[in-house]
């Protein structure tokens, strides 16, 4: 046991090799056989992967990392570019136009709305007024009829004026077209209601006046 202990201590000091096979040099035959096998295996590996044959693994890995980094950069740049360009063409919320660009658009919109709907309504109202006036003119003139005409004329003129005046601020304000359309529709409805009420009242009064006139003419007690 003492002998083994001495040998171990010598071994630990690096003075006594215990595994000489680890440092033995192979024979010439072994070296030649290993060399031939090595060369054939390397040539075989290079023929299987000719593109990467000359590259070392570290170089290959760095090339792969660079390729992935490049692809990631391109993808990120594309996403950012798409995000920047998106609101200009496909925004969910329509941006408010500036005063310079909105003016012609609003003018066109207002002109079309007024010319197509409101102008027709005002023209219809005027035609109705003219018809009622002609009917009243065909009747005998009374103080009530005159008052009704006097009352109806300013209302019609006022409604017509309101409809015309409505075009001017609509062209100046930078507000959505829907708001103008709704306001114009409300004005139109209000105008029609007022006109129909006045027309009904005038007709009623005309009928009453005619009945009174007939009654007066047919009365036997009244002197001719």
């Amino acid at each position, binding site marked *: *046991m003492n002998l083994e202990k001495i*040998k171990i201590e010598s071994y*630990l000091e690096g003075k006594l090799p215990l*595994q000489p096979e680890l*440092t033995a040099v192979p024979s010439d035959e072994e070296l030649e056989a290993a*060399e031939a096998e*090595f*060369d054939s*295996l390397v040539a075989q590996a290079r023929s299987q992967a000719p593109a990467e044959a000359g590259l070392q*693994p570290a170089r290959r890995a760095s090339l792969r990392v660079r390729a992935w980094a490049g692809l990631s950069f391109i993808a990120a740049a594309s996403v950012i570019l798409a995000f920047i360009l998106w609101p200009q063409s496909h925004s969910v919320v329509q941006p408010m136009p500036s005063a310079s660009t909105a003016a012609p658009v609003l003018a066109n919109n207002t002109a079309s709305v007024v010319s197509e709907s409101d102008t027709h309504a005002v023209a219809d109202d005027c035609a109705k007024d003219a018809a009622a006036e002609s009917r009243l003119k065909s009747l005998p003139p009374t103080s009530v009829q005159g008052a009704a005409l006097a009352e109806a004329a300013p209302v019609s003129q006022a409604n017509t004026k309101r409809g015309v005046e409505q075009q001017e601020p609509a062209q100046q304000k930078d507000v959505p077209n829907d708001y103008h359309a709704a306001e114009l529709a409300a004005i139109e409805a209000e105008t029609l209601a007022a006109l129909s009420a006045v027309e009904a009242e005038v007709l009623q009064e005309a009928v009453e006046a005619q009945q009174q006139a007939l009654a007066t003419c047919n009365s036997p007690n009244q002197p001719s």
Partner: protein
Amino acid sequence: MAHNITGCYALFYCMAPAEFSPIALKLRPRLMALGLSFFGDEEAAEDAAQEALLRLWTAWQGLPAEEDAERLAVRLTKHACIDAKRRMHTELLVPMANKTTKTEASQTTAADMLQEREMREAVVQAVSHLRPSERRLWTMFAEAQMETTQIAAATGIDVRTVSAMLSSARRKIKNELKKGGWL
């Protein structure tokens, strides 16, 4: 190729031990490239290059010229690569038989032979507990009897780091042998 070191200096010029370090430093990148072209793995290539330089050191003083040293180093690296590849596939350990132990064992009794064999197995077992990097350095130190400067040249590690790693490896082997009752 002759590897007989005895009488080399007397008959013709042989490589001096001091020449090993600079030539090993110069050869290392070439041997590493060879290992990398074969394995594609830096650690396996490092193993092959170090094993080749360790065996080159064994044959060093029998080599006539630097060109022979370079040629032998390349062949030893290729052999180490093939050997490592075979070990990976078969997972068989190299048997411990060698001529010197046989000649020594023939002069001793059967009990002494048995006890020495057990001691060698205990040492091998203790060395196997080292990390691979420590094991390579320890093999160069204990088996090839290389100096720290030569080990540093062969491994590419700083001399002070080599000394520290050797001290650590020695302490670990001692502890393992103490556990087995050998010290």
